[in-house]
């Protein structure tokens, strides 16, 4: 049997004067620091690549009708379609035509001969812009509503609470699908291939408001009962002053970690919608759409078309989650000390 019996934590109840953290925590911290910098590094790389995606030194990544690049791409696709990445020596490549290379690029090429790495970076741009804008708006509105509900309570609180409840009663992705379809009706937005960004952003904002409102409300309630707020109130400070001068600065750290977690969730949500074909339209790459496009070639062993963008997305979401975790832990421990 095992040797660990009852007390699972480092010390028994009465180990005296243990001011500092136990051994294992230190180890975790050090390991955490490396992963933290890896995460920051990856996000920096993604951001820079996303900004400069158009000038990445690879074959065309998208194709506008009438574009001169396009004809090259289409011509190229006969030669370069569905090539595995250069390093994938284990993958059986399709027979090269006319002496074209067997393997292409960092992440291979897709059905149309577009370079997957470049497209992934373009996808990063779309995903990050959509999710970033959505979380910004969502957080702004959610914070406002949550603070009002949590501070004034009473009727305002009940109304906000009930609206949130109804919104949360729809499964999130279904709600988003519903909203996107409604906003996206071709009768109002014109041709199918020029879908604007705003319907999807709006859907994501709507999606993010109820949970954020709840979280902020809970935090506001916690702070509204703290001594310094009670003191300010007893000195006759106005509600708005207390909310913005006393409570808001205190919940900002928490908001930051919500923002990161929310960003990760919204990137995934956008990916889901894009996977279903409901995000920005086909020629503009998004991670979800790229993964969806790869699901058919996957059957014939062309794994990179789905898995490479999936991998890029996974690393990005993982990095954001990691940073969110680091942030949450830091503020939690500060909370515990102060």
């Amino acid at each position: 049997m095992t040797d660990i019996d009852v007390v699972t934590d480092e010390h028994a109840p009465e180990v005296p004067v243990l001011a500092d953290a136990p051994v294992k925590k230190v180890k975790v911290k050090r390991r955490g620091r490396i992963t933290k910098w890896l995460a920051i590094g990856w996000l920096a790389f993604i951001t820079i690549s996303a900004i400069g995606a158009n000038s990445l030194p690879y074959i065309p990544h998208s194709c506008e009708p009438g574009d001169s690049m396009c004809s090259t791409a289409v011509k190229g696709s006969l030669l370069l379609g569905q090539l595995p990445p250069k390093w994938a020596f284990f993958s059986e490549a399709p027979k090269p035509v006319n002496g074209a290379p067997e393997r292409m690029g960092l992440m291979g090429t897709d059905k149309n001969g577009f370079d997957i790495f470049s497209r992934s970076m373009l996808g990063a741009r779309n995903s990050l812009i959509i999710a970033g804008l959505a979380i910004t708006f969502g957080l702004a509105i959610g914070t406002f509503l949550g603070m009002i509900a949590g501070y004034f309570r009473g009727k305002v609180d009940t109304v906000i609470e009930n609206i949130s409840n109804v919104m949360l009663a729809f499964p999130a992705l279904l709600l988003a699908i519903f909203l996107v379809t409604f906003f996206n009706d071709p009768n109002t937005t014109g041709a199918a291939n020029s879908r604007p960004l705003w319907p999807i952003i709006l859907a994501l904002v709507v999606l993010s408001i109820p949970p954020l409102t709840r979280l902020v409300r809970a935090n506001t309630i916690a702070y509204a009962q703290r001594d310094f707020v009670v003191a300010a109130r007893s000195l006759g400070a106005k509600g708005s002053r207390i909310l913005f001068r006393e409570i808001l600065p205190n919940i900002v750290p928490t908001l930051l970690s919500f923002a990161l977690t929310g960003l990760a969730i919204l990137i995934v949500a956008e990916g889901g919608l894009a996977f279903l074909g409901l995000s920005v339209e086909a020629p503009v790459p998004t991670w979800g759409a790229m993964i969806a496009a790869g699901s058919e070639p996957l059957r014939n062993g062309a794994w990179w078309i789905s898995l490479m963008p999936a991998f890029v997305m996974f690393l990005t979401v993982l990095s954001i989650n990691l940073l969110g975790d680091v942030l949450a832990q830091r503020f939690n421990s500060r909370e515990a000390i102060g």
Partner: protein
Amino acid sequence: MSPQTQAASRQVDGPLLQVTDLRTAFRTDRGLVKAVDGVSFSLTRGRSLGVVGESGSGKTVLSRSIMGLLPKRNTERSGSVLFEGQEIIDLSLSERRKIWGREMSMIFQDPMTSLNPVMRVGKQLGEGLKIHLGMSNDDARATALKLLQDVRIPEPEKRLDQYAFELSGGMRQRVMIALAMSCGPTLLFADEPTTALDVTVQAQILEVINEQRRDRNMSVILVTHDLGVVAGHTDEIAVMYGGKLVEKAPTRVLFANMKMPYTEALLNSIPKIEDPSHTRLNVIPGRPPDLVNPPKGCRFAPRCSFAQSRCIEEEPPLMTAEHPEHMYACWYPVGSPVHRERSAQLAEQKVGAR
């Protein structure tokens, strides 16, 4: 045969419990925390021992270490614990489990947290009976009822189907005692059993423990920070400081003639009824010693008003006092010339300060 008579019929020669040079340390990043540092004592069957000390003196670790309840992963344990003549310090978990509950059991400080919140009282009581004595559900329930009657809980029948949160603090602690008694152990550890209770209930609980001890001819080790608690309820008292035993004597002897300035300070820190109101409490200044790097000499020296240079340099061994069962570890015990001189000085300073 009921568990009680079974336990009582066991014949034992010599002491029930013999602890020799027991050491227990926890590995932390600051180094080894030597929570129990070479403690030896023995306990005769049917007697009760009070272990007294401030928090951080190692008294709780001592009791858990004797029982073997500490996690092995980050604990270092050495020395010898003979229970009924059998060495139990190196038993495996499954061997120890056979002893736990059956031979020795434990009562904890907070009856609110030491009972499972989501299990009915009757089921918790019956669990040990089923494990150790192989009782059926019905027998276990009947015995549980009997146990609740023994600890004099009102309406015991009803309690069986209640949850801990539905009981008062005193009742919960009675349930804990019943739980500890269930398989008729020969040794009971009571770890601050009354600290979390109302003053009025404290005496009752101590009385129940004592009653059970007499009825079952069981030994009790009562761990507490409160000399007042052990005064009326134990046969012997062991005072711990910084992981070491610093004084041990039969209760009456100790109170009549305490040798350690620490014991005296502990006693003085209890407010007395005859003191005028608003008397300053005599708290012991300073903090318990760092158990990673304990002081070289006497561990109490840095906080002791009577400390001399020898106290700081050299660690006092356990010495025997006039009474053969009275041991203490102090170079200048209460009543010695040095101590007398110093207390006269202190008294003068006090008057001068006024």
